[in-house]
């Protein structure tokens, strides 16, 4: 127990005085400390008085101890804090902070005024969330006492996603620390010194050029208006908030959606996500509002009449779709499930195909994800990864195979960085566009990396006690590859994690997975994680839908919930259910407009098996309906009993079997006939996200991801 301002409060070992106070609801002003960051102790605003301790130690760096007696607000402390804050404000536009008309101005001048340059809080995008203002209010600073020294730095607005005005920066260092210590990127640093100190890049190059990954972590920790998201900076206070799970990649980060005017206005990573722990990435942080507020949303049900699509009401569209589907034998109907729909929708689609349509084929529309899930199921009896992402936190070695994580699962870099900082070895097989390759200990960027992997596995197999003879025989001839010796040494007998991505696709993916699972993942303390590309592939697979091929060439009727699918030439009747307009609309006979991520309710499952709730923050456009609702209306239209979530219950997940090592192995290595992976790494309901989000296009073009 510790006594703070006369209140006796509990604390956990390792907590600082600041953390103990915050948990007890006692406010101590801070500017440089942040819950995501290790203590720093630079701003000195959190100074407190501790009995029997000399001077005034900072609460954010002082560990709480039993019987400590702390005072946080004596007149001495406040006076000292006030003079520190005055110095900070002497280099920060402060007219609105000390203005005598402030009270009335706040009352009547409620919206922030869009301005190029910030000369006071009323012209600042951070007005509603500024921590500097809060501290100034708490300390009742009403005159600064120094002439304002305005730096007159040029505004930095040439990079995508966020803008920088270092004239309002207070040099708290949070952005620099989060970028280096948490993200492991180090795209910004303190440059120069003394009065000229400024946060920036080397030689003042752009963030694009300097290797920034536009994760937005710096924007979210900045206590002032120095850093702000371009698309949303002037939106003011949200009216609604909802915690949901992002489905723009397989990680399933917990995010907080913010809504206003019945739209999603912003999205920020949520502190307590099991897979992301407060961090996010360019997709979840910056792409959700522009994507879902895009003008290409489908708004009305459409039915083809005399060759052209016309808007109709829901009843007519459902009836039309039901009538069309009934014309075909079950064997002629294909249902293609988007990897972004909720678990509930997937289960209902499954029921629809089996019970209502009497055995129509149902497939997951994701090449790598369905292949990897099917292969892992045949290996272990249970489709999916053999462990959770948190295994990376305990690993001594992390093996990345065929995944350009900075593009497909950017947030995982945070865990990899943490592992590296702990001393784990990061081994990276495959090309990468990550400009910050200092994350990696051993890098094999060459196209023949799978042969290096085969050589590594052969060496591991030959040295294992049990007999891998049959298996390792097929790997003969690979041991000589340069690097195989070092890599197998780094993995042998270690607690390891293998992360496998879609880069293995053109290269006999099943053989690669089998060998990797059998030889490495089967060893004790080792997990194999499938880097599922898309939002809810795992959940859809758990609902009983997983296939190995795309749409059959000979399906006559199609019901698709994803716009990417190529249409078989022979399809006579097509029902499309999607949030976005696409080329596919031209081929559809019936179009159902559905809701998107910020409008959905239900659950989704992350690539490592966490089931999370999806909650809406806005209404969809026009007459769009939730996928589950559309499916259930269609079921009724087909004459079935109306389905709801409870009738779509799922049995228990199968138990994972020990690896059997019985699978025939092809030789690993390139297989030129397989179709290449699409250039763009991120899709939602079959729509290329970069196509809809202009800033993402800029970013990916610059990195050479898309032409």
């Amino acid at each position, binding site marked *: 127990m510790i006594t703070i301002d006369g209140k006796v409060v509990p604390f956990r070992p390792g907590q600082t005085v600041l953390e103990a106070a915050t948990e007890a609801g006692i406010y101590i002003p801070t500017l440089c400390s942040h819950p995501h960051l290790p203590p720093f102790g630079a701003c000195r605003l959190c100074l407190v008085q501790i009995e029997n301790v000399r001077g005034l130690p900072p609460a954010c760096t002082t560990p709480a101890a039993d019987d400590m007696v702390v005072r946080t607000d004596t007149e001495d402390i406040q006076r000292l804090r006030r003079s520190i804050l005055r110095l900070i404000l002497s280099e920060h536009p402060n007219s609105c902070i000390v203005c005598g008309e402030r009270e009335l101005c706040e009352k009547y001048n409620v919206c922030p005024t869009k301005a190029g340059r910030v000369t006071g809080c009323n012209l600042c995008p951070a007005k509603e969330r500024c921590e500097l203002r809060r501290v100034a209010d708490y300390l009742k600073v009403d005159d600064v006492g120094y002439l304002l020294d305005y730096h007159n730095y040029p505004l930095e607005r040439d990079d995508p996603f966020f803008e920088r005005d270092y004239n309002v920066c207070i040099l708290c260092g949070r952005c620099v620390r989060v970028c280096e210590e948490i993200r492991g990127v*180090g*795209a910004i640093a*303190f440059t120069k010194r003394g009065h000229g100190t400024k946060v920036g890049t080397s030689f003042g190059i752009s963030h694009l050029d300097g290797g920034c990954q536009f994760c937005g972590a710096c924007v979210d920790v900045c206590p002032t208006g120095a850093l702000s998201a371009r698309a949303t900076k002037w939106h003011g206070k949200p009216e609604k908030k909802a915690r949901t799970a992002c489905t723009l990649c397989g990680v399933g980060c917990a995010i907080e959606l913010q809504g206003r005017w019945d739209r999603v206005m912003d999205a920020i990573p949520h502190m307590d996500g099991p897979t992301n722990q407060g961090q996010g990435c360019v997709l979840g942080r910056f792409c959700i509002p522009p994507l879902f507020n895009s003008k290409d949303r489908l708004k009305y049900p459409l039915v083809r009449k005399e060759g052209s699509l016309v808007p109709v009401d829901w009843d007519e569209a459902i009836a039309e779709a039901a009538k069309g589907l009934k014309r075909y034998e079950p064997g002629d109907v294909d249902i293609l499930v988007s990897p972004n729909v909720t678990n509930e929708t997937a289960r209902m689609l499954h029921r629809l195909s089996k019970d209502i349509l009497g055995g129509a084929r149902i497939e997951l529309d994701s090449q790598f994800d369905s292949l990897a899930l099917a292969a892992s199921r045949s290996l272990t009896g249970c489709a999916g990864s053999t462990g959770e992402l948190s295994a990376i936190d305990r690993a001594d070695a992390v093996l990345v195979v065929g995944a350009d994580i900075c593009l497909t699962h950017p947030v995982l870099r945070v865990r990899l960085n943490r592992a590296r900082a702990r001393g784990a070895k990061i081994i990276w097989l495959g090309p990468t566009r990550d400009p*910050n*390759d200092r994350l990696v200990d*051993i890098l094999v960027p060459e196209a023949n990396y799978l042969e290096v992997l085969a050589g590594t596995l052969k060496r591991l197999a030959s040295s294992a006690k049990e007999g891998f003879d049959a298996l390792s025989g097929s790997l003969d001839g690979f041991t000589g590859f340069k690097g195989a010796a070092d890599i197998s040494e780094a993995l042998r007998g270690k607690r390891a994690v293998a992360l496998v991505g879609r880069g293995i696709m053109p290269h006999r993916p099943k053989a690669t997975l089998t060998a990797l699972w059998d030889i490495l993942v089967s060893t004790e303390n080792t997990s194999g994680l499938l880097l599922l590309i898309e939002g809810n592939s795992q959940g859809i697979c758990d609902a009983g839908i997983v296939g190995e091929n795309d749409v059959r060439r000979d399906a006559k009727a199609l019901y698709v919930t994803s716009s990417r699918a190529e249409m078989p030439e022979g399809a006579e009747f097509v029902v499309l259910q999607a949030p976005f307009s696409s080329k596919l609309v031209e081929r559809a006979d019936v179009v159902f407009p559905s809701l998107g991520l910020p409008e959905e309710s239900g659950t989704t499952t992350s690539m490592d098996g966490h089931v999370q709730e999806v909650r809406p923050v806005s209404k969809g456009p026009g007459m769009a309906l939730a996928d589950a609702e559309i499916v259930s209306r269609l079921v009724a239209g087909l004459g079935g009993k109306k389905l709801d979530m409870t009738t779509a219950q799922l049995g228990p997940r199968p138990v994972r079997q020990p690896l059997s090592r019985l699978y025939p192995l092809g030789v690993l290595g390139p297989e030129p006939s397989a179709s290449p992976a699409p250039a763009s790494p991120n899709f939602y309901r079959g729509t290329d996200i970069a196509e809809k989000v202009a800033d993402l296009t800029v970013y990916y073009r610059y990195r050479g991801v898309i032409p």
Partner: protein
Amino acid sequence: MRQVIGSGTPQDKAPWREAVARILSRHGNERGELIPILQNVQAELDYLHREALEEVARALRLSMHDVYGVATFYAQFRFSPPGRHKVRACLGTACHVRGGDDVMAALERRLGIRHGETTKDGEFSLERVACMGCCALAPVMVVGDEVSGRCTPSKVDEILARYGGGD
């Protein structure tokens, strides 16, 4: 130390790359040796350019921006090639008191660059120094080896003109 198997290491063997590699290995690729490494690199290359900093950062597994941040903290490092004529203005205590700032301002205006930079034609580079050891002559400026004392803005024009600059 990071290991890259296959490609990844720069193919071009520019002489400066070899010099930097030599310096790095002499210091055992130690992060703690960053300052001496940068000093040696500057001694070899005359200034720290972007590729050189990238190389140092990569070898020490630091961020290039971090290395730049450290380097810009110290006045001794420069980031543009020195000009044919090195111009230095003293801003030591004595010179400061007697108008060194005015001399510096005049130089910056006349040359069209800020201190630490080099003119586009590569003729002049401008630096600030803290005391040249001839305080009696304050304020002092130096072009190449030529020391001029009791400088004023108009004298700056005169001196620069002799070197063919300043208009």
